[in-house]
């Protein structure tokens, strides 16, 4: 067991290293650099050279990479050029914001998607399963940009909810800071959770239906065991398998933030940071974001594999 964990940990470390290095390389390959981004098209050549020297952008990739590596070993992940702050400060701040959003969305999506999937999986005919299926499919065919835009539009039209940000803007807030945060959380979390719930529902539905068709279920029913009990006791655990296996992936990618949702709802999270960093060719920030993403993913997959072992002892190591 310990050996397994140690191996996973080593792999995770390697993953973080590999992803950060690849990101650094890719950002360098992309045309333009922070100097072009911040100075624009009319900048004088001399000014550009000066700026490049200031930020160390005139070094070769090998030099820059070596420099970054050496500092990373001391846990100094460099400074963001666009925000002029240490990367190690910026990322946890944004990651925490994304985490709040991600956890809420995940919770909502799981609470909604899995039970609904069980319902549609065990009952093929009927109005309720059909409605649920239709809603799921609708959500899956809408791009996340559109879903968030729609929700923000809806919030604007009805005026019930704030349109963006994380709260705390106005001086007088009824109910305190927590209520304010929750109010601001509703729109972005809904935008994230709805397609996710749809995905869970679809997968769960499929797995459920398959399991119910298994011989052991049929046998149990034949023996006279009440259907509900069969579903709960036997079928459920097996049926949770596919969803659990990708749960880790979902957690990992969710914690890296969704760019579309965060941008439209002005949520200061990691997803937005990642793409802004790419656009600005903010080299160290890009590497830092990629590293953070891989940490989350490694943690997520470990979690998922652990859950899988729990849910399906046959698959245990």
């Amino acid at each position, binding site marked *: 067991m310990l050996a397994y964990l140690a191996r996973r940990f080593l*792999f995770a470390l390697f993953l973080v290293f590999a992803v950060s290095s*690849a990101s650094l390389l890719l950002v360098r390959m992309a045309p333009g650099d922070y100097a072009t981004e911040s100075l624009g098209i009319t900048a004088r050549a001399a000014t550009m050279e000066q700026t490049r020297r200031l930020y160390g952008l005139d070094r070769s990739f090998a030099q820059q990479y070596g420099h970054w590596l050496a500092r990373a070993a001391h846990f100094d992940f460099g400074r963001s050029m666009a925000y002029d702050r240490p990367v190690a400060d910026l990322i946890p701040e944004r990651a925490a914001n994304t985490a709040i959003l991600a956890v809420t969305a995940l919770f909502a999506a799981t609470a909604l998607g899995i039970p609904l999937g069980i319902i549609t999986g065990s009952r093929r005919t009927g109005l309720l399963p059909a409605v649920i299926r239709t809603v799921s499919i609708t959500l899956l065919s809408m791009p996340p940009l559109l879903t968030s835009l729609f929700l923000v539009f809806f919030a604007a039209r009805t005026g019930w909810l704030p349109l963006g940000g994380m709260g705390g803007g106005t001086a007088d807030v009824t109910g305190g800071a927590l209520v304010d945060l929750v109010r601001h959380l509703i729109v972005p979390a809904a935008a994230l959770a709805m397609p996710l719930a749809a995905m869970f529902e679809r997968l769960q539905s499929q797995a459920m239906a398959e399991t119910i068709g298994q011989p052991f279920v049929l046998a149990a029913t034949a023996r006279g065991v009440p259907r509900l009990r069969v579903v709960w006791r036997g079928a459920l655990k097996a049926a949770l398998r596919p969803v659990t296996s990708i749960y880790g992936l979902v957690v990992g990618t969710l914690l890296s933030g969704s760019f579309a949702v965060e941008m439209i709802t002005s949520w200061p999270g990691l997803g937005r940071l990642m793409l802004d960093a790419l656009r600005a060719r903010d080299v160290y920030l890009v590497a830092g974001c990629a590293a953070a993403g891989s940490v989350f993913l490694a943690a997520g997959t470990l979690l998922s594999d652990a859950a899988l072992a729990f849910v399906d002892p046959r698959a245990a190591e």
Partner: protein
Amino acid sequence: MMGRRIGIVLVALWCVGALGAASFAPHTASDHFDGLLNAPPTLPHVRDEAGAWHAPFIYRWRLVDQLEQRYQEDRTTGVPLRWLRGGHVVEGNDQAGSPLLLLGADGFGRDVFSRLLFGARTSLTLSIAAAFGAMMLGGAIGGIAGYAGGLTDDLLMRASDFIIVLPAMYVALALRSILPLVLEPRIVFVLLAIIFAVVGAPFISRGVRAIVRSEGRLEYAVAAASLGAGHWRVLGRHLLPATRGFIAVEMTMLIPAFIVAEATLSYVGLGFPEPIASWGTMLRDASDVRAFADFPWLLSPAAAMFVLVLGLNLIVQDRRPEDWH
């Protein structure tokens, strides 16, 4: 069975529409009418104001306010639809300024319906090809990982983790800088299909791996192995079929995701050049508040995707064994 047939019909509908786009669509993907930006759909009527019956006709749109893009129907004359002319099944009267816009016009004055059909070609072929690629790749990786276990399993899974975590946008941006300025659609297609297949594979491989691992310990698999069946045989004939259901559902989710992702990648320049239409780009261009408030026909690619995904789901889910309650 009933559901399955409906599903096949829905999917076939789009395939036929895409293939026959040149005939079914009254216009090409790039025809634009400059006085009709964001014009609403021209609905065909059969009864005129006076109540008399006619062959199907449409009314023209008159521009009321250019800045607000408001139009009013010109109900004085009906413009009859013309059938089977010039290679088109049906069309309005383009020369007279009353084109047939079944789903209205977009922000450039292009016919949404025609672009939807032509876009189906691009989006459907790309996403289905990529989905199959992801299935092959993911199925193979997941199957091997789940069956072999141990170090192989770990290595393969961590490799797919790497692929998930590395943002595709970075790769696309770097890739775009290597490619020539003017992109050829075929090259873009192949590149996007490969990128999507690779990016989508891990989602499939993880689920396949989990299923294969647990199935692999079931009696029938062990029995088969003990009877001397080779590894590949056990994998191919016994274990992988158990993953069919999961893969099928996963693919129905990957396809719309790919259609949308094509638009996201075109944002960094790795997209189909004009005048090629695609559902993803159409939706991205429509991602504006005005689409919800004033121009809902711009969102028809989402409806189209809905129909497609519904059809796919109906086909897939009816593979289940009979409900037994």
